[in-house]
């Protein structure tokens, strides 16, 4: 009958404790392996959450229509990147029933000045629906109104950073700014929104799209309706998003005169974008976890090495134990347990370090890393398993020693 495990564990602890430096160094590989598995997986998941939030910050139930066929690569199906027009946006608004608001967007980076202060900003020509679709909150004043769009009034709503840069502590409402030397009256200041996909949304200026087309970007040859870079659409509710996607596609194909040809535009739902991003971040998490897993494996090999050395050094002890009645299985269990204890202790320390690094990550980066109990459970059981597997060979070697030879050595 093999010895009971507690007995063996306390014996192993005594042996390992007698050589603390070596035990510590042996554990180090597993410590690093565990810490990195937990930290890496947490970082990967945090990145995943971050990306998801970015998409969600775009607005819920939102569809994005962009020129060109994204499915077939840039430029495919349409050689020009200006196949979408303001008229398309207006048609969607009037003819697609599942749509609540439509926000055509024309962007350009332009020079903004107020008095002697000058800066660059992303000028977005759009309509009042932008505020609805993109969920812009205002700190002061109002957003663009339907009247602004029709009457082509040169008004501007400033992003919070632009307002800060141009006006500092001054009150910006009803002041005049210049965009490419055209005068605009400030009617509103957006609340800070942070950045989305590397685009600082607080560095934006919103003006009526017709004003942008007529006064800033200029008339486009042979067009009755100005081109737009994006049409953002919000569906009536999330269940209507795919219906809207379908209806918009049909409408635009009709309007663009496409019968056999492929789409010259792309309609993507936020769900599509999320799925794409998720498939990328899933791979990221996997790669990070795998890399960290390799260091666990290396740690296991470290344990095996030291255990083999230990068996050689303790030949006499093994011989003595066998002489006084230890069976092969007793010796085997003893050495296996020593390896498992090393691995599991390494696991505990590594996990603690991993948790600490998650804390540091959360404090110092925009990523909000959360503790994954799955990762802890996995790395724990994996390190126990590693101890077991890499402990087997040394344990077998110990158990097979001939006591006479062992005692004589």
């Amino acid at each position, binding site marked *: 009958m093999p*010895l009971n495990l507690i007995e063996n564990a306390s014996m192993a602890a005594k042996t390992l404790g*007698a050589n603390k430096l070596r035990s510590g160094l042996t554990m180090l590989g597993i410590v690093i392996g565990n810490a990195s598995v937990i930290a890496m997986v947490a970082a990967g998941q945090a990145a995943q959450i971050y990306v998801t939030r970015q998409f969600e910050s775009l607005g819920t139930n939102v569809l994005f229509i962009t020129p060109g066929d994204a499915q077939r690569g840039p430029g495919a199906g349409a050689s020009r990147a200006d196949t979408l027009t303001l008229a398309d946006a207006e048609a969607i608004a009037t003819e697609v029933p599942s749509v609540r608001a439509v926000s055509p967007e024309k962007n350009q980076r332009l020079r903004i000045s107020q008095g002697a202060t000058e800066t660059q900003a992303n000028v977005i020509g759009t309509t009042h629906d932008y505020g609805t679709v993109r969920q812009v909150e205002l700190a002061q004043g109002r957003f663009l109104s339907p009247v602004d769009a029709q009457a082509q009034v040169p008004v501007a709503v400033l992003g919070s950073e632009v307002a800060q840069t141009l006006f500092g502590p001054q009150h910006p409402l009803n002041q005049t700014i210049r965009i490419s030397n055209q005068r605009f009256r400030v009617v509103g200041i957006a609340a800070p929104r942070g950045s989305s996909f590397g685009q600082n949304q607080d560095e934006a200026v919103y003006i009526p799209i017709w004003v942008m087309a007529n006064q800033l970007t200029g008339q486009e040859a042979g067009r009755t309706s100005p081109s737009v870079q994006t049409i953002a659409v919000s569906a009536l509710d999330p269940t209507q998003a795919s219906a809207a996607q379908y209806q918009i596609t049909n409408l635009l194909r009709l309007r663009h005169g496409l019968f056999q040809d492929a789409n010259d535009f792309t309609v993507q739902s936020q769900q599509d974008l999320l799925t794409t991003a998720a498939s990328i971040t899933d791979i990221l998490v996997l790669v990070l976890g795998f890399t960290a897993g390799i260091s666990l494996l290396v740690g296991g090999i470290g344990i095996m090495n030291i255990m083999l050395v230990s068996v050689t050094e303790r030949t006499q002890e093994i011989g003595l134990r*066998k002489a*006084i*009645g*230890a*069976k092969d*299985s007793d010796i085997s269990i003893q050495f296996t347990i020593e390896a498992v204890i090393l691995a599991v202790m390494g696991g505990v320390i590594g996990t603690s370090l991993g948790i600490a690094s998650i804390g540091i990550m959360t404090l110092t980066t925009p990523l909000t890393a959360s503790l994954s109990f799955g990762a802890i459970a996995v790395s724990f059981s994996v390190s126990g398993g590693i101890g077991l597997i890499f402990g087997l060979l040394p344990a077998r070697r110990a158990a097979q020693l001939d*006591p*006479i030879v062992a005692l004589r050595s």
Partner: protein
Amino acid sequence: MALIELEQVSKTYGSGPLAVPVLHDVSLTIEAGDYCAIMGPSGSGKSTVMNIIGCLDKPSQGRYYLDGQPISNLDANALAEIRNRRIGFVFQQFYLLPQLTAIENVMLPMVYANVPGPKRRTRALRALQKVGLGNRLHNRPNQLSGGQQQRVAIARAIVNRPQLLLADEPTGALDSQTSQSIMDIFADLNREGMTLVMVTHDREVAQQCERILTFRDGRLLNGQDASSHPSAASLG
């Protein structure tokens, strides 16, 4: 019935043309309660006999009965159990585990015998008191003198109350005065009925035994007769 009975035991290491014979046709009987020395020059086969008697090794030919039980056909686990319950070992180099205290070293055989925890401590304590070390329970081997270490080893050997105590050069690493104190312990144990078999080079030590078995070139020179008693022995 004799405690130890070897019948025409031979031992050969290796096989074929490289075979090294170390024991030839050894037959001997040791009765329960005997106090017996095994002598002989190195390479005479005395250690091999000792290993066979101690169930650490098996004869190549011949039979070995321990207390009437045939040993030759037992498997490794059964032999381990016999070593654990019925035989105590004392070695020249003591072989105490350095990370364990005296009493923990003594408790070790009981660990393998599955003796319940509390019982181990009392039995180990009694064994240590018997060898005169009741006051050094919690010292580690490196805090003990050679003689003290050997006494811990003797306590470890007798703690499972074996029928047979085997000692391999037990005084080989000790000065003569300490040696004598160890021999006194052995004499006491023998008086209490323990069978003792001791391998030694030291004729003075051997002469304290009741009987000397002398080996040369793998053969037992003075087997079963009364000439093996030290008073009649003329060899050495």
